[in-house]
């Protein structure tokens, strides 16, 4: 009985979560307790350890909030607040989601376009590839404010600059994956089409496009996560009209650590959901195409 329990995969998962929670609560007790002691000593109030232990998990702006505080904040800002309210976390999530999805879509199109160009034209490969790679070596934190300011000067604010930063991050994995994928067509299949005197367009739409699909989906998973990061980073310098990024920023301005953590948890959940949706689409498309057994 005991041995069987150990073999269950969920048992390992629960043990892992349990261990993380234990470490988290101990760390929170140490960090928050220290702060509490400092404050009380400054105020010259007498304190006892039992008092500290009961108070450490209830501070309003703790250095390290504990999971149940974050859960309570999440519950309050997700279920107890109207979605249209600026206090609702869903309101901000939806703003970030919009620019993520728009940026992702643009990035996928741009990425595929560049890959098609590179695969069909040697000159384009030599001239474009260094720029594609260089674009990703610049820290996004450095380039995001520049894009926002430049676009702001021509009166483009809000969704568009944020999406462009998402696009900037998400086109890269798509280009790299698609260049590899479009070249992954079976040699025999290519020769077969040659014997049919197929045009380059036919070779692309009947062979290369399908041969690239497994690579495309692998890239899409990276790209959508990158698009979310891009959208959040873009919300930091935009003057924070809304979005998970602005929640992070305003949280750190006002020392609202619980707010920061709940925004972090929300963005992690959103990221998981988006990648899961791409995975779902992948298995649906590939199964329909007979590409996986």
């Amino acid at each position, binding site marked *: 009985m005991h041995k069987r329990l150990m073999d269950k995969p969920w048992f390992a998962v629960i043990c892992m979560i349990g261990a993380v929670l234990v470490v988290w609560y101990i760390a929170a007790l140490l960090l928050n307790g220290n702060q509490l002691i400092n404050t009380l000593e400054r105020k010259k109030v007498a304190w006892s350890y039992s008092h500290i232990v009961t108070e450490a998990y209830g501070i309003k702006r703790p250095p390290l909030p504990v999971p149940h505080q974050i859960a309570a904040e999440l519950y309050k800002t997700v279920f107890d607040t109207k979605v249209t309210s600026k206090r609702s976390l869903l309101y901000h999530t939806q703003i970030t989601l919009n620019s993520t999805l728009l940026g992702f879509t643009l990035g996928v199109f741009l990425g595929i376009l560049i890959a098609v160009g590179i695969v069909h034209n040697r000159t384009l490969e030599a001239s474009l590839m260094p720029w594609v790679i260089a674009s990703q070596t610049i820290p996004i934190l450095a380039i995001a404010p520049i894009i926002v300011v430049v676009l702001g000067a021509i009166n483009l604010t809000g969704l568009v600059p944020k999406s462009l930063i998402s696009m900037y991050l998400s086109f890269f994995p798509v280009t790299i994956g698609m260049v590899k994928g479009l070249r992954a067509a079976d040699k025999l299949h290519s020769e077969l089409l040659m*014997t049919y005197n197929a045009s380059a367009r036919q070779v692309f739409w009947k062979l290369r496009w399908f041969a690239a699909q497994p690579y495309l989906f692998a890239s899409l998973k990276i790209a959508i996560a990158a698009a979310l990061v891009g959208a959040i980073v873009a919300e930091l310098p935009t003057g924070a009209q809304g979005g998970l990024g602005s929640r992070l920023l305003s949280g750190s301005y006002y020392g609202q650590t619980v707010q920061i953590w709940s925004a972090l948890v929300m963005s992690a959940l959103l990221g998981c959901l988006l990648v899961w949706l791409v995975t779902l689409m992948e298995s649906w498309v590939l199964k329909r195409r007979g590409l996986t057994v």
Partner: protein
Amino acid sequence: MMLVTESTNAATDNIEAAISPEFGADSASEPQTGRQMIGIKDLSLVFETNDGPVHALSHIDLDIREGDFVSFIGPSGCGKTTLLRVIADLEKQTGGTIHVDGTSPEDARLNRMYGYVFQAPALFPWRTIAENCALPLEISSQTKEKQRRQVDKYLAMVGLQDFHKKFPWQLSGGMQQRASIARALCLEPDLLLMDEPFGALDEITRDHLNLELLNIWESTGKTVVFVTHSIPEAVLLSTHIVVMSPRPGRIAKVIKSPLPRHKTLAMRDSDTFNALASQIREVLATDHQID
């Protein structure tokens, strides 16, 4: 049944004499009257490699007539596949001339004048069997109606009429190869180029597909060029057997089959069949001694 060894010596010297009484006037060794389908003169192909030039094909002369079933046989490295690829314009010769159906191999390819069957089925895994067969028709912009008609006809011809909607991985290796033959037939080319199409199949499936191919060849009157490394397969199928040798790849001998065009598996037990097989074996052996 007669003893194999008895007929071998006589047949290799004078094959005509050994077979004539057995199969009579239907023999494929009748003088050829068909027009030329493939004409090759003094053709050479040299691959430049890091180790210096490799003479894949050297001074090939060959004349293939319309309606012939010609097999290229020889050990690996003898250039039989390369020669087929030159005919298909998948390789370019470095010397000599070649004509396919009166034009250059390139024009023949651009006009989709031949169907090519690879050693592997080379079906697109994301297409159903019917969609795979329709591929050459789609590429040559045939109407949907014509596509459907051709696919129905040729899938039925190879015995796959119930597998239209299956994906390649749902079929056995033999069925996949049959589908790839149906695909090659769909364009109704006069010339069928086959590169060891049954090489990867078990012997039982192979026998079955050999007969099927013979039926198709007999009923359609196509010209078939067939690469194989199986002597019995070459003897069973061919009107002409081109025996090739390696280093440099060249034609050792062209043997005209004395067997009739209409063949049965039972013929494999006949004297004529065995005489022809041992003649091929002898040519291959002689040439290997030179090596």
